[in-house]
């Protein structure tokens, strides 16, 4: 780390902390407006049906209803989507997944509307369901979106060398199939948004919106107004993790349509059940890996075939699966690779962006496989990784040479195994034979041979996983960010960026960067409200790109303004041409003359001289390229590296896996806010442990079973014991002093590390997440046969 930093790398308290800790911070549902109405959704309990008619006659004259909104009321485009326009704002022909909305009742009593909506009569015909993604591409499969021509959303591939020849040259071949479940983001704040009609000025929208500019684009297209007539303001966001994008764009559009029709502010807020029902989720993957390797453990060929369940709509599937295809071989240099990833339509809840974005799934498969290779050869998990690890100058599976940054894979691995004393523990715990007893389903009474000695009940295990991750969007699209900075004549500062605070602490990070560049304190910087009418579009807040891209823009803005200030300091204080002016601790220094002035005095001076002290900083990513046809290219302009070690206790009687410790070593480049960075690790690891051990959405006849936190379990304070974050700060020239990405890397490794630890503890490999009780004890997933739940029926 650069030792000259004065605030970067310190533990800085969140700039929105005071408002949040006192309950004053306004989240989307905390906003109220005069004459505000509510909107309530009409759905049917079906995952695939043709809509014949909707009859509102019983309720249309009811006084509690101000308006009924259907597809016919949508003035602009009727279907939308982040990549493909396949998702209706209101369904009028078919529903293709149980969250689909047919119409909306608007009125001032939400409770009454919820009763009335049950009286709308929908006549529909059930259609055959596709819930198994592996069958979506079968010849006889019904087409979910007939105009797409097939149920294929996208097909990506990467080819390097010749895998078949590589397998011939290999001493050993292993082939395995792994699966991962459907995962809910489970942000604690459910979706909420209010649209306020502004007459000729269009509409203003305040909501729990992750990507205000994406929402603006979609709302404008749906209500058929130019972009400048749609103003989106982001309320404090109660968590997102990638999840408040598509859903919030559509809810914003629905609220806008209703607000313009009713000519009143209209609020939509979801219950937890509606949130889980309609919001998109993380893709389930079915992953087949075949690997050929030499006696020494060098991987010679890897062939990967992945099917991703995209659910009913394309959403971000093309980009999510693109990251998978680029990274599926893991952080290893392999001569012969053939990876194919297909995302398909099914009638399951649709899937899109979620923290990790196409990486947690292949990492689970790939890192499980690496351990299997090690066990097969009788070497340690560390050795197998070192033999194959990416290093400076390595060529990735897509043909990219890794250069211009520290390729710190082996460094993070070494640091992690040392911190956790991995090698010794792994050898001590290692089980050659499975300890869990096979369960006989035909004879469920426990037999003598299934008796477990009490002292054998709890088995300890340790496991590790490593990853590399391309930063920001890569070849997905244009990658730029902007930041507005304005210095007042007393030395205080306004700051705003086009990226959005999702709870991760981005605003604080940006304030630190601006403060560092101006030599002032983060507390002197006032972060303005995120509003699409005040700042240029900076693309979405996704892909752990804020610190890197937005940070680059903030630094650029601060350096433009400090340059102007330095110029007048030289003139005013008659400093020589070669002298160097610097700002520190609210003071201005000349290298030759020392302390020259106070920062605030220079600001006042600049003001009196008519110098412009406001600017928009800008950061554009270095170019990347991708050739979809050959599956080759420099996919991302830089990468980050991580290693996590999991230590677990497995109860082989009950199947319970308890996480004793996760050592998480990450190289995110320069750490800007230590407090925020540690927070990303704790939170990401905890979400990753939920993914490993118990989270999963299941369906019955296409309908979701887990609609609230009584059934969809996320980690509580009691589920994980110790998490130890460790940072290796590799050098990089990009962004703000080489600060890169952290939010997603922290999550993507945990499930793989835990799974390897469980293998170490019980001697048996598990191929299907989550590793819940029944998976460990019975080797299969159990689900209730019928959906019986009060809330929505």
């Amino acid at each position, binding site marked *: 780390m650069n030792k000259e930093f004065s605030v970067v790398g310190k533990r800085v*308290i*969140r700039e929105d*902390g005071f408002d949040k*800790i*006192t309950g004053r911070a306004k989240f989307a549902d905390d906003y109220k407006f005069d004459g505000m109405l509510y909107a309530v959704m009409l759905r049917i309990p079906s995952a695939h049906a043709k809509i014949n008619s909707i009859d509102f006659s019983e309720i249309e004259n009811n006084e509690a209803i101000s308006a009924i909104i259907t597809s016919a009321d949508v003035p602009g485009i009727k279907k939308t989507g982040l990549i493909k326009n396949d998702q209706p704002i209101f369904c009028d022909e078919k529903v293709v997944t149980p969250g689909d909305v047919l119409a909306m009742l608007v009125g001032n009593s939400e409770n009454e509307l919820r009763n009335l909506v049950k009286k709308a009569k929908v006549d529909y015909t059930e259609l055959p369901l596709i819930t198994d993604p592996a069958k979506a591409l079968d010849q006889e499969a019904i087409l979910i979106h007939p105009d797409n021509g097939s149920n294929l959303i996208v097909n990506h591939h990467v080819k390097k060398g010749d895998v078949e020849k590589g397998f011939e040259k290999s001493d050993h071949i292993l082939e395995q199939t792994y699966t991962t479940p459907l995962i809910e983001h489970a942000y604690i704040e459910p979706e909420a948004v209010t649209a306020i009609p502004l007459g000729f000025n269009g509409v203003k929208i305040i909501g729990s919106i992750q990507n205000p500019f994406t929402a603006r684009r979609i709302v404008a297209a749906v209500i058929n107004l130019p972009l400048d007539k749609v103003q989106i303001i982001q309320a404090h966001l109660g968590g997102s993790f990638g999840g408040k994008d598509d859903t919030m764009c559509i809810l914003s559009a629905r609220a806008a349509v209703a607000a313009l029709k009713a000519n009143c502010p209209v609020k939509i807020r979801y219950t937890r059940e509606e949130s889980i029902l309609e919001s998109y989720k993380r893709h389930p993957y079915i992953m087949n890996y075949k690997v050929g390797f030499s006696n020494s453990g060098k991987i010679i060929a890897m062939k990967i075939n992945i099917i991703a369940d995209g659910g009913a709509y394309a959403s971000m599937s093309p980009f999510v699966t693109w990251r998978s295809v680029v990274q599926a071989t893991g952080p290893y240099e392999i001569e012969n690779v053939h990876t194919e990833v297909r995302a398909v339509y099914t009638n399951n809840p649709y899937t899109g962006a979620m923290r990790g974005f196409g990486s947690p799934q292949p990492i689970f498969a790939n890192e499980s496989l690496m351990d299997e290779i090690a066990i097969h050869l009788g070497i340690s998990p560390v050795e197998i990784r070192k033999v194959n690890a990416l290093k400076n100058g390595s060529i990735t599976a897509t043909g990219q040479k890794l250069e211009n940054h520290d390729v710190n894979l082996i460094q993070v691995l070494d640091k992690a195994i040392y911190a956790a004393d991995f090698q010794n523990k792994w050898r001590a715990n290692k089980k050659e034979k499975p300890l869990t007893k096979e369960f006989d389903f035909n004879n469920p009474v426990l037999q003598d041979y299934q008796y477990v000695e009490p002292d054998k009940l709890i088995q300890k295990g340790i496991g590790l996983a490593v990853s590399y991750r391309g930063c920001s969007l890569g070849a997905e699209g244009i990658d730029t960010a902007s930041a507005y900075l304005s210095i007042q004549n007393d030395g205080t500062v306004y700051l705003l960026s086009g990226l959005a605070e999702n709870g991760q602490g981005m605003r604080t990070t940006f304030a630190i960067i601006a403060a560092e560049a101006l030599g002032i304190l983060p507390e002197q910087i006032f972060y303005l409200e995120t509003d699409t009418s005040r700042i240029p579009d900076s693309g979405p807040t996704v892909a752990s790109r804020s610190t890197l891209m937005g940070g680059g823009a903030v630094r650029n803005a601060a350096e433009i303004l400090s340059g102007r200030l330095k110029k007048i300091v030289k003139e005013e204080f008659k400093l020589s041409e070669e002298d160097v002016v610097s700002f520190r601790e609210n003071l201005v220094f000349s290298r030759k003359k020392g302390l020259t002035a106070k920062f605030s005095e220079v600001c006042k001076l600049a003001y009196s001289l008519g110098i412009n002290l406001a600017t928009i900083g800008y950061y554009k990513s270095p170019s990347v390229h991708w050739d979809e046809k050959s599956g080759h290219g420099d996919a991302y302009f830089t990468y980050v590296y991580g290693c996590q070690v999991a230590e677990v206790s497995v109860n082989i009687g009950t199947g319970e896996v308890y996480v004793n410790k996760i050592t998480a070593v990450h190289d995110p480049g320069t750490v800007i806010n230590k*407090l925020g960075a540690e927070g990303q*690790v*704790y939170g990401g690891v905890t979400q990753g442990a939920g993914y490993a051990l118990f989270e999963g959405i299941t369906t019955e006849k296409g309908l979701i079973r887990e609609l609230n936190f009584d059934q969809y379990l996320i980690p509580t304070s009691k589920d994980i014991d110790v*998490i130890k974050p460790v940072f290796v700060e590799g050098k990089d020239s990009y962004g703000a002093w080489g600060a890169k990405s952290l939010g997603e890397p922290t999550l993507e490794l945990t499930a793989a590390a835990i799974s390897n630890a469980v293998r170490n503890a019980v001697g048996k490999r598990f191929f299907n997440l989550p590793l819940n009780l029944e998976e460990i004890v019975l080797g299969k997933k159990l689900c209730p046969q019928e959906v019986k739940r009060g809330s929505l029926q």
Partner: protein
Amino acid sequence: MITLKFILNGKEVSITTEPHIRLLDLLRDKFDLTGTKEGCGVGECGACTVLMNGRAVNSCLALAAQVEGYEIVTIEGISNGDVLSPLQKNFLLHGAVQCGFCTPGMVLSAAALLDQTPNPTEEEIKDAIAGNLCRCTGYKQIVDAIKETAKELQVK
């Protein structure tokens, strides 16, 4: 309609309301105390936690009518104007707040714990907030903040 009299954040209040609404709605809609959040509506997430005579309860599971004669404290009543309580200050210092949606409930659960058990063990802290879900922080910083507060209060 019923009229309820109770103490809300230290002040005696009286309000006339429909009898069937939840305490959560009473606070958010009638008193505009929007610091109390709704995350699940079924008693699982703890975002709606308030203190009822010093005990942490899920206000989504309590009927408004139950507060008659009780003393209710919400997040708005925890600080002294702009002066943060030691618990609030430690939450910020330890990075126990990210998105902040679970925060009011967490603070109140922690306040109830420290009131009843001034010197809690780590297990007791984890138990006290086990009914408060947080998807952002991973809980470590929250546990640390509570531990530190207990320590400070012991010294005093």
